[in-house]
């Protein structure tokens, strides 16, 4: 396990939306999927995952359904709704603009000013 990075404030919702956009997942699955994609570099606080999931569902960005897990047990699966897809798209764009902007600021050398 490499050095872990703390999650930036407010990005958890976006990551959850991204994770479930790849296919329906249960809560534990969301946790694993994010860690997996990040190459085990990102760890999500256990305490914040479920409130975030419930909040997103409350906002109508994801929907849930009881189904069967890989190990044949009942689990609650979350999937992205149409509203969630739009939200994810706009959040991604915003994020990209923001990062490129900040990156360019950080790249600035004294000569350029």
């Amino acid at each position, binding site marked *: 396990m490499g050095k872990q990075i703390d999650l930036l404030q407010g990005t958890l919702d976006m990551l959850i939306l991204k994770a479930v956009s790849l296919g329906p997942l249960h809560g534990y699955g969301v946790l694993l999927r994010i860690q997996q994609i990040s190459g085990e570099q990102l760890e999500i606080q256990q305490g914040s995952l*479920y409130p975030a999931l419930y*909040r997103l569902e409350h*906002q109508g960005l994801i929907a849930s359904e009881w189904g069967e897990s890989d190990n044949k047990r009942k689990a609650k699966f979350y999937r992205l709704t149409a*509203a969630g897809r739009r939200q994810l798209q706009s959040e991604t764009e915003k994020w990209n603009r923001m990062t490129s902007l900040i990156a360019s600021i950080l790249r600035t050398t004294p000569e350029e000013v």
Partner: protein
Amino acid sequence: MKFFARLRSWLKWIVKRTPLETAMEAELRFHVESIAEDLVHSGVPPQEAMRRARLQFGGMESHKNAIRASLGLRLRDELSMDLRYSIRMLAKSPSFTAIALLSLALGIGGNTAIFTLINQVMLRNLPVRNPEQLVAFGDSIFGGVAGGIDLGGFGGYFPWDFTRSMQTDPGPFQGIAAYGSFSNKVSIRPVAAGGTTDASSPAILAPANLVSGNYFSVLGAQPLLGRTIQPSDDATPGEGAVTVLSYHLWQQSLSSDPHIVGKSIAINGTPFEVVGVMPQGFLGIKQELEPTELWTPISMQTVVLQQPSMLTAHSGLYFLHLFGRLSAQATSNKAELARSQNWLNQQARNGIREREGGTLSADRQLGISRVNVPLVPAAHGVSLIRSQYGESLKILMIVVGLVLLIACANLANFLLARAATRKREIATRLALGSSRARIVRQSLIETLLLSLTGGALGLGIAFAATRVLISVVSQGNSYIAMDPAPDATVALFTLGLSLLTGILFGLAPALAAARTGAARNLSVGTRTAQSSGGKSARFWPKTLVTAQVMLSLLLLVGSGLFLRTLRNLQNQDYGFERSHLLIAEVNEKLAGYKPSQTAGLHQILVERLSALPGVRSVALSATPPISGGTWSSSVTIPGYTPAPNENRHSVLNRVSGRYFETAGISMVAGRPFNDADSANSQKVAIINQTLASHFFPKGDAVGRSIIIDIDSVKGPWQIVGIARDTKSGNPRDVDRVAMTYIPLAQIDPYLPADSSAAGANGVAANTAVRRENQDCFAYTILLRTAGDPAYTIADLRAAVTSVDPNLPLVRITTIQDQMSNFMTHDELISSLTSLFSLLALLLAAIGLYGVMSYNVVRRTNEIGIRIALGAQTPAVQWMILGESLVLLAVGVGLGLPLTLLTTRYIKDQLFGLSSLDLVTFTVALVVVSMMTLFAAWLPARRATKVDPMVALRCD
């Protein structure tokens, strides 16, 4: 969209709470088990895996709480928890809760009751289209027929021909309509199918109002059934026998007959076609205590009023009121409103000039050019009740508001004391992690719970109280235009008031609770904690008690002033004997008597009634010694040259032989009427002192003659006596009124022959037929009894029935009741302010007692030490009493100037005393001081009983 998604989800959580909670639990458990499973896969033993998984995941409850918070459910959960807690706390101290609820219910109930009346009398709009556009022309509150005298202007009364021209040309108004200035009672009988009146069925007496053909359309009122009266109905005098009924009459007397439209009813014996029924809320533009029950066109005046036609050009009879509907612009624009006002004034001035005709003197021209007919807003209708009771109701509203404030101060004090004893509990909660906001919130929920419950109880009390109030105001009428049932406005008022009350008395204690420091209060003893607050903790209770003393003083002075006003009104010299007198209203005209038959009827009536046991003397008259309506005219004295514009007005009464003896009016000079004053003897009159001193300052009245400027009773009458002045109308009037009495027996039942030819009356102006004189009827029977007059009522009824079973006795009252009708609102306001100020005094006493006892309990330690160190009983007693005396002094010191300032505003309501009446102020001060001393004395006594050993060992 997002909002709706959230709302849906939130509602889902509220409704399906239990299954969703179960699902949440299952989901979290699945998560923990999944972690454990993965750990097992990586080689951890199952038992250990489960333990580690739980550890890694953290507390289940805190996860759930976090989820609930993220859904916005926490607030709701906490509120319901606080509510349950508050109910438990209130149930734990039932006596406090009972006192709090009782004082709140009385306070809020009183406010709601007065507001219910204010809402009905003053706030409610007429149930018509755009009521804010309606304006009355001049003062339309009172009603009657005026004539024979120079009015100098139209006032609020208008003659028929003038109203006609205004209706056809409304100028800048959308419309102008007229109506009879009074609703008079008519007899109503159903008409059988064949068109014959069923004379055997009892007639109903109901107030009818004459209205112009455009009355309903200008008013903008729609009928419930059929149609309203139209201009074509009112086109020709004597024609248009149609009527529109009120909902109440249709329901009560015609059993809600759905096919009533098109049928006929007999009004005063003449068949009228019912063309429509008005909806329930409609009572006409003029709202009288006894609401109008039916409307007929002005063209039917002779039938409805049972009087000769007033519908002639230049009749000189002023009996109609006018109102108009302003244009939309004039309603919002001042300049446009002024234009309407100017137009109306111009019309009135032209009307007067035309009436007076010929060339007018410059003086008169100037007088006329100054005539104004003010536009009076009539969105709430024109109401005598409002003008009579409006001021009283406003004062009462302020009084009950003050009582509620005093009750609030009490509750705030109780809660402050309780907050002090609950300091430990609050400190514990703070130490356990509760937030201050949460504690304030819980405290406020507790007080709101109290105030809302109190408000609900108050609504019930208000309903009962309003019924009583209305029955006082109604003066015995069974159907009046007021209703005790609260409507939406009243319910909203009560809810708002309850919330406001809750916040008012709950805020200070809640904030005090929140200021509690955690650590300090846990470490010390309860009692020490209570007394540790020092001066600042004692500031609020004392301030509140001072305010209560202040307000009690104000209320006591107010009620004292009103009580003394009522006594002054009652104890005036009325000029007639006010005991053992029974008054009955009769209506000979409605019973079908012709003026020429009255002489015989009167003779039999007097004979029969005089024979009753216990009756000393009997008299008949047009009006009782004191009455609301008057018969009046200007008079002329031969040989007396009046100054220009001199007031020659006299109130008239026609009376039978023993009137002065029966009413107890003594003679100052000359003789009273007697049986010898008959139709065939010399016509005689009696005048009162005021009239005598005005026209005969030398005292030579007896033997002179007087002419009344009404053709039917013109005279000349020879003056044979001078009677004492009496108060014949409003007891508050201090102006002396001139009066002339003439004998009933000497009034000619026929009008003088020449007068019937004078006007082009609607009735056939045939001089061969002598027209009957309507001024021969007696409307009042007076009985002077030996014992309690109330016992004679049954005998009176039986005797009148034995003379003629159809002769209706409209109302029988003792003279006291008759007079108290004039003082209803004085009685109402004085008894209610006394009641409320006593309630306020009681509440203030409870408050003071509470604060003082609490102080003693709080200072038990200190007092114990003082006694142990040798303080004597009187010294300890003085310590406590002194504190309350300071409160009293401050309360009175602030309250006295406040009262002096406030009573100025009720000056107009007082009679016979100034608003700074010394007696009232002294009594109020003594009462407040006694109350303070009494409330402080008990705790002071208890302080001396403190046992130093017990007190010191306590903590």
